[in-house]
């Protein structure tokens, strides 16, 4: 498991260590089974092509969950994810690497909790942002009883 991240460790502008995912058609089938999302656009190439696409596309929520993985891996066990927003801008295709990235946009203490807000995005191999989003997390401060 990764090291615990503390509130004092991050500053506005700090970058989250990027997470590279390479979804395959097999992974899309696994996601369909796990999530119950059997929209054929994610596994039936003929159907996807009949809808004007070059092939099957990656489920938006799978990519959203990759951003969840980026954040939970970064904040560590004592951090907690309070809000995650994703806007799916354009399609992602299996076989193409996706890089999940984020940057701290704000940090503040409210009601005794230490909040950090981040902008998030997913880039495809062409460097296009296919998903953009934001997260609000709570981090432990150094010297807290849990640390």
């Amino acid at each position, binding site marked *: *498991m990764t090291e615990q991240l503390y509130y004092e460790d991050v500053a506005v502008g700090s970058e989250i260590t990027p997470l590279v995912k390479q979804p395959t058609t097999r992974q899309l089938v*696994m996601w369909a089974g796990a*999530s119950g999302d059997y929209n054929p656009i994610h596994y039936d190439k003929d159907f996807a092509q009949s809808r004007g696409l070059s092939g099957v596309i990656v489920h938006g929520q799978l990519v959203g969950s990759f951003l969840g993985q980026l954040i939970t891996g970064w904040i560590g066990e004592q951090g907690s994810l309070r809000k995650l927003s994703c806007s799916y801008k354009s399609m992602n295709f299996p076989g193409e690497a996706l890089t999940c990235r984020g940057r701290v946009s704000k940090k503040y203490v409210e009601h005794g909790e230490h909040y950090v807000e981040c902008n998030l995005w997913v880039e495809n191999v062409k460097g296009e942002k296919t998903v953009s989003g934001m997260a609000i997390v709570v981090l432990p401060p150094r010297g807290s009883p849990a640390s």
Partner: protein
Amino acid sequence: MAENQSSIDGVRAKIGEEWEPRVYEIEKGMIQRFVQAIDDPNPLWQDEEYAKKSQYGGIIAPPTFILIIGFEQIQQQVSQSIPYGTVLHGATDLECYQPIRPGEVVTVTTKIANIRQRQGKMGKMVFITFETTYKNQRQELVAKCRQMVIGY
């Protein structure tokens, strides 16, 4: 398109109306399949021994796991009300209040928050926003989610 329009008007008439809540028992296997599908190695989701020593005292589900609970209700509504060929996710806004653990019982209540139509490059497009609340067996709010689905 007349038929499409009437089904969209039917959806519009039901904005804000909560659907019958559905109850889901969270099994460890559901969480495992979810984590394997994402390919997330975090031991907190799967390693019982590790999780036992964590502040949670046992396995918890990743925050985005809740998105799949009761999602089939949204899918059913979408396939009935958007008789178009292509359905995509447009946006997700998730608020998490508590982690979900295996063995918990989650009650899911969904309503349609908004529907709008617009002429897009792919023809007429419809955008439906769903709002879902998730409560545990103690009737505590565990998460809320807004999901926007696009059909064309």
